[in-house]
């Protein structure tokens, strides 16, 4: 039922990579690298400036693929991948969008299972890709039925 959105892309959203949000995120995952918060340490590193933790792109806004609706509860995050061309920098502005790459339906013991693959991309101000974050989302038959009935 989601197949017809394959290849569709959301309208891009510009996200600032905020210092305070990065510090709070790093603290929440227990990552004490000084490169996220200490400018002096960051300047001395190969990056030359503050960076964000590799899983930070999860919190950014990628916009909505028009018309695509998913159940609000019961989704299972099965797999996750981050692919970077360079680290994400604090204080930069990143243009983000997402694309539904693939939809597969599989038969599992518990019934039909739908697997959605979503690519989320972050680009710099020149339009160069910084990262792709790929989510594999599993929708079980029970979750899909409950959602369709509601």
């Amino acid at each position, binding site marked *: 039922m989601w197949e017809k959105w394959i290849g569709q892309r959301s309208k891009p959203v510009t996200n600032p990579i905020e210092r305070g949000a990065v510090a709070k995120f790093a603290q929440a995952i227990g990552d004490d690298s000084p490169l996220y918060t200490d400018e002096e340490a960051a300047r001395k590193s*190969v990056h030359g400036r503050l960076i964000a*933790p590799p899983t930070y792109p999860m919190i950014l806004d990628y916009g909505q693929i028009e018309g695509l609706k998913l159940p609000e509860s019961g989704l299972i995050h099965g797999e996750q991948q981050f692919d970077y061309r360079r680290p994400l920098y604090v204080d930069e502005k990143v243009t983000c969008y997402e694309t539904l790459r693939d939809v597969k339906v599989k038969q599992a013991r518990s019934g039909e299972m739908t697997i959605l693959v979503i690519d989320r991309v972050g680009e710099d101000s020149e339009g160069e890709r910084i990262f792709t974050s790929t989510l594999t989302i599993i929708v079980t038959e029970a979750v899909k039925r409950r959602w369709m009935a509601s």
Partner: protein
Amino acid sequence: MITEVFDLSVGQEIPSRTLPPVTRLDLIKYAGASGDYNPIHTIDEAAEKAGLPGVIAHGMLTMGRMATLFSPYLERGFIRKFTTRFKGMVFLGDEITLKAVLVDKHGDTARFDVTAVNQKGETVTAGQVEFCVRNK
């Protein structure tokens, strides 16, 4: 002590870390920092209604914690690729051990198998990290 990722040989591990038992506060903090307020991660009744024995940790919290194994090496490089598969659930009180084994090094890139294992020895999350050395 090993100070550089590239000093390791294939089959060797980065020092592993066992984290303190998962607390509700850990999950509340991650919910706030990530904006993921799905109540199955913080509120017992919501978790039970979803058929779970109790609240479960965000998979992305475990993945975020796995990356911290590489933080001591970030002065010289960065994680270029990080892939995980969420295999099992993490509950309150679980003690998670993070491990990374070097499987391959090539050019500027070192590839690791990374796992998060609970106190029963079950792998809850398994993945791979490609750590890339960067020139200034």
